[in-house]
């Protein structure tokens, strides 16, 4: 399927029709970056994502799942990869503040948990 407009202009149905019909294994990296609106943060993970998804072809066939070549999988993979969750050092801070019943430090640590996961 050819992309005719940016994701933000697509309706929900258009978006899902696109991500479940656009195949990624037959495109160049440049084409994928353009068509799938891959961000600079996501870019470093593109090669490993494609490699991983290609390695899943047989498994998907065996389990009767859609082909891992569909854009849906690549987009989900990249978005999940850049979202690192809450960094371990902040989790430790939260656990320490909880153990010490220190509400002030707890508040700061949780705030950092949101902040860092967005900025890093």
């Amino acid at each position, binding site marked *: 399927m050819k992309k005719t407009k940016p994701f933000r202009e697509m309706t929900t149905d258009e978006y*899902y029709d696109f991500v479940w019909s656009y195949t990624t294994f037959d495109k160049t990296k440049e084409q994928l970056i353009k068509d799938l609106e891959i961000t600079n943060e996501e870019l470093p993970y593109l090669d490993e994502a494609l490699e991983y998804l290609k390695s899943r072809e047989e498994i998907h066939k065996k389990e009767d799942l859609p082909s891992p070549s569909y854009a849906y999988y690549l987009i989900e993979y990249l978005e999940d990869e850049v979202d690192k969750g809450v960094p371990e050092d902040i989790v430790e801070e939260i656990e320490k503040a909880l153990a010490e019943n220190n509400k002030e430090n707890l508040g700061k640590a949780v705030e950092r948990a949101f902040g860092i996961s967005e900025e890093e």
Partner: protein
Amino acid sequence: MLVKDYPNLQFKEAKTDPTKTRFAVVIGNFREGAVALPAQAISTRRGKALNPSYRIKENELMVPKEVINRQIDIEIRGVIKAHRFPLIEGKQMILKVGSLPLETKIQLIGIHEHIKNRPFQVQEMKMENPNYAKIMGFFKEVTVAEKLQFMRDNRGNHQYEFLRNKKFSLKAIQFLEKRKNLNLFSVKLEGNGKEFTHTFATRKSIKEIQKDWKKPKMAKAWIREDMKFHALQRNPLLELKPDPQPHPDKYTSLESLGKLQDQRMNREKER
């Protein structure tokens, strides 16, 4: 809830990367005493989801701005991934950070109902948790109970989720009014050392009520006696007419209900 070792996406399961610590919404105390509860991840997608131009997906729901942990004064941000149903153990749950408002829970039900008709979403949900549909059903039932304020205690906490399998007996009853073909009764239920008052709308006759409501029932059976529950199960967005206020001195026993009703009907006939 802040959750440690939140599992990877199903299709990424084979990847050996460590799981992540994430904020997640625990969507129900599914089975009493269960060691693990289903929780839906909250993700900011590294801030991308907080950008006004972010295109929200059909399996996502934005956490509303007012979800704030008052204890530590932190606003919870991100999108709830409504198709994730991994079971999270108690020891993985590090910190409770807030609760979703009722409106958001109702929106989440809307997303659940939508994605359970989308084959590719179903496939992923089934792989992650074969009981996903039951969990959705449970979440809906508990949310509808909250909307009905069924088993809400004096502190404003909704207890139904924890008491749904406990037996309750009718302690006292009061006829309130007739609305079309429904009779409205205020009922005091007692059991498990607790007492709750609830207004039931029923099509049952007094005789049927005396027979059916005589024996103790589980909370989940009591809520199903209220027609408002069934209406909200069909459409959780429905705005119901407020219940009439019961009179504190007009409660009676189930046995006396028939007599009082006969007297009332006789008086109406005489007029």
